[in-house]
């Protein structure tokens, strides 16, 4: 049986898909993911991180996982290839800035939820805001990994938390 693995990376502008065997090791998974990168990419410093629905605390203990089947979830496995272990994230809202490190495989949606809570918003208010990359009009989809938005060696990204659009006129 094969498992769908969705791969994002600082080297990829769009999410890619690879299928691996249920009994593949994480080493096999990483090798398959690396093959999706553009030809000539220096892969020597790339680390694989796994999107985690449960906990984005970079200090949290995680159970040792050796096989892909141990990562299996209802919605496929999602991983990220990045040279940085963590990405520094800054979120600006009104006159306040909140900051912390996240793993590259953390989604924009989870960062938004964290920032909203940190800024004292209730869940309903958070859902009415989106993250916009500072200095641009780019509002990445909630499923985008923050590692995709932060190239090494900067390994940081700054967002503005802005209201979701109301289509007037």
């Amino acid at each position, binding site marked *: 049986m094969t498992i*769908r693995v*969705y*791969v994002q990376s600082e080297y990829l502008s*769009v*999410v*890619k*898909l690879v299928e691996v065997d249920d009994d593949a090791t994480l080493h096999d998974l990483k090798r398959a993911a690396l093959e999706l990168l553009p030809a000539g990419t220096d892969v020597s410093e790339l680390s694989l991180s796994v999107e985690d629905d449960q906990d984005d605390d970079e200090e949290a203990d995680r159970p040792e996982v050796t096989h892909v089947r141990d990562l299996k979830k*209802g*919605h*496929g496995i*999602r991983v990220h290839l990045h040279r940085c272990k963590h990405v520094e994230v800054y979120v600006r809202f009104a006159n306040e800035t909140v900051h912390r490190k996240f793993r590259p495989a953390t989604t924009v949606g989870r960062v938004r939820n964290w920032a909203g809570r940190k800024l004292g918003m209730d869940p*309903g*208010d958070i*859902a*009415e805001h989106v993250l916009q990359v500072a200095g641009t*009009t*780019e*509002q990445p*989809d*909630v*499923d985008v990994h923050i590692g995709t938005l932060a190239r090494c060696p900067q390994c940081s990204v700054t967002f503005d938390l802005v209201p*979701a*659009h*109301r*289509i*007037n*006129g």
Partner: protein
Amino acid sequence: MAPDEQALRADLASARFLSGEDRNRWKLEELQWPYLRVRVTARDGRQYALRLNCSGFPASPPTGTFWDSTVNTRLAFDRWPRGGERIQLAFKPEWKNGDALYIPCDRESFVGHDGWVTQYPQLVWNPAKGVCHYLEVVHELLQSRDYVCAAA
């Protein structure tokens, strides 16, 4: 097969589209060229079918509306998603007789709204994002606080 149909079929097999399916954001129902039917999941778990005319894809945006797949016709207005201001502005039956959603990435609705390019650059059709762009905009609205639910 025409290039636009070929491009759409490739898009439906893309990681972006399949990822959305795996996250239960949407589900492909049927492609009967040029019409694509996809169910989009709302905050309360309800699924609303969209029927999109995808001719000219991806250079030309899709256009479409909520669909009742059981009787193969536009969804009755009293069963459209209801809610607050954001929902009412985007999903308004009186617009185009209910045949298009009032969102900047809809082909028919974009006509005559040149200002949307600067007003809502993120919502204006982006061929590189493919049909997921349209689906993400609708999904985000159906997940918003403003969404209440359709009438029973």
